[in-house]
């Protein structure tokens, strides 16, 4: 039975929604099932017709597709194209889908054969360079984060259902971190990518006294030259900074520019 709801006189439909996963830890889908206190209200907004991790007999008639994970094999590429064909709105869910995620760290080895051998020996295994969804299809909406933040997903989904525009913060994590009254981790001798990473996580890591690892990718105007200077002046090894920048894939083009 479909309830029809309205908001300010505008009819609000429950969009038929599917969740899919490519190569990932499936943590972002798990986050969807978290925040139990509001889970039922959340589920009420969407008509979930396909969610393999949680349900059998999924349907392939959906309007919104949330796709978690990155593409690492030809069959995933095919699946993704199929999903794109069906979905009106394709949402990249989490950093793997948006940037390749931790998976793309294997791309840093030029020799894919070595990578295979290191893990599987001589056993034949199929894999390709890890790439984000946007390398293959048009992504209508990105939800950043490793993991995604349920609060943010709730807001985005509500806006999606209402037809409100979805604007990610353009500014870096520092803004949220300082707003939370944290003491900057650089003062405590820890590296942090807050100055260049897109906000929206409410400074999740710095709030816990852990420097940002940049899981949400770059802010709209990320000043990498200055970041490098800040790291240098705090005696943080270049490699430690690069480790963080390359961790989730969001900064791959920035790293390319930096090493040039």
């Amino acid at each position: 039975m479909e309830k029809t709801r309205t908001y300010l006189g505008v009819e609000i439909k429950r969009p038929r929604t599917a969740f899919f996963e490519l190569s990932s830890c499936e943590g972002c889908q798990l986050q969807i099932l978290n925040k139990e206190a509001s889970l039922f209200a959340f589920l009420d907004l969407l008509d979930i017709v396909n969610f393999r991790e949680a349900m059998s007999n999924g349907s392939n008639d959906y309007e919104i597709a949330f796709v978690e994970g990155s593409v690492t094999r030809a069959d995933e590429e095919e699946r993704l194209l199929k999903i794109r064909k069906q979905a009106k709105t394709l949402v990249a869910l989490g950093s793997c889908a948006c940037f390749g995620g931790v998976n793309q760290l294997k791309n840093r080895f030029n020799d894919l054969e070595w990578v295979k051998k290191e893990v599987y020996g001589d056993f034949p295994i199929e894999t390709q360079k890890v790439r984000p969804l946007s390398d293959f299809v048009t992504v209508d909406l990105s939800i950043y984060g490793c993991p995604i933040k349920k609060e943010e997903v709730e807001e985005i989904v509500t806006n999606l259902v209402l037809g409100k525009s979805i604007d990610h913060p353009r500014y870096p994590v520092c803004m949220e971190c300082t707003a939370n009254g944290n003491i900057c981790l650089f003062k405590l001798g820890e590296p942090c990518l807050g100055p260049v990473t897109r906000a929206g996580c409410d400074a999740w890591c710095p709030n816990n006294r852990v420097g940002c690892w940049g899981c949400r990718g770059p802010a709209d105007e990320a000043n990498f030259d200055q970041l490098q200077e800040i790291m240098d002046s705090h005696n943080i090894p270049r490699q430690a900074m690069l480790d963080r920048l390359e961790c989730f894939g969001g900064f791959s083009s920035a790293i390319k520019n930096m090493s040039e």
Partner: protein
Amino acid sequence: MNRLDFVDVLPTQQFSTRKSDLTSFEYSYKAEITSVYSLTETEKLYQIRIIDSDQRRQFTFKPGQFVMLELPGIGEGPFSISSSPTRHGDLELCIRAVGNLTKFLGRVPRGTLVGISGPFGTSFPVEDMENSDLLLIAGGLGVVPLRAPLFSVLENRSRYKQIDIIYGARNPSELLFTYQYQMWRQFDINLEIIVDQPDAAWQGPVGLITEILGERIEAAGNDLSTNTYAIVCGPPVMFHFVCDMLINAGLPMQRIFVSLERRMHCGRGKCCRCNIGATYTCLNGPVFDYWSVLNMKEAI
């Protein structure tokens, strides 16, 4: 032990329109969208009526002022009042769907309740302009804030001398208020419309506003130094060209009025988003004379 007494700043009064009153900050009039007309693909004209009759009677505004319109949970934004100041509390807003709030507004049906606060800002000094020639110059959506002073002037047509409206749009389909041109002309107004990208049916002039303005200035003997006022509304790029021409023709800067646009979150001189220096577009503007504009960095 409680040594300190609690001071409540909002005692009992629920509503007030006095500018300096603390209660006026977050309070708004509830108003109903009584009709919606589509003017073009992206612009709609909304008639809005303040529900409470006392509030409606009290609501007065001056031409050029704006209101903050709020859709609960969706957004709030500044919109110029585009109707006659003599029609209390029955407002017309012409709104282009560009973003979150305005696109949602494009979907709401007649009868929807909205929040209105204001009026805010400075106005065009139409009384000062009496006994003079008027040049009303609008580009694109700029015709919207121009309509309120135009109504005021039309209602007192005899007090003004020659009135010219020069209105430019990108293409004929973007022209607003086409149904009113006839009526304006009946008031002995020179209405010149120019488009940049004509369609097959277009018969009028083609080009930029400045071309028509050039002709008009020429007709005035290249001298606007006496007895002319200009009101200029449009996108920031337009201001430079138009105002420079007017100044070159001798029109004193303090007789050129423009309406500026900025992002606004409060309309009350608090959020700082509309600031130019410490000048608030919402309090000290949106209507400025051109001298003030030149004195503000990055104003246009």
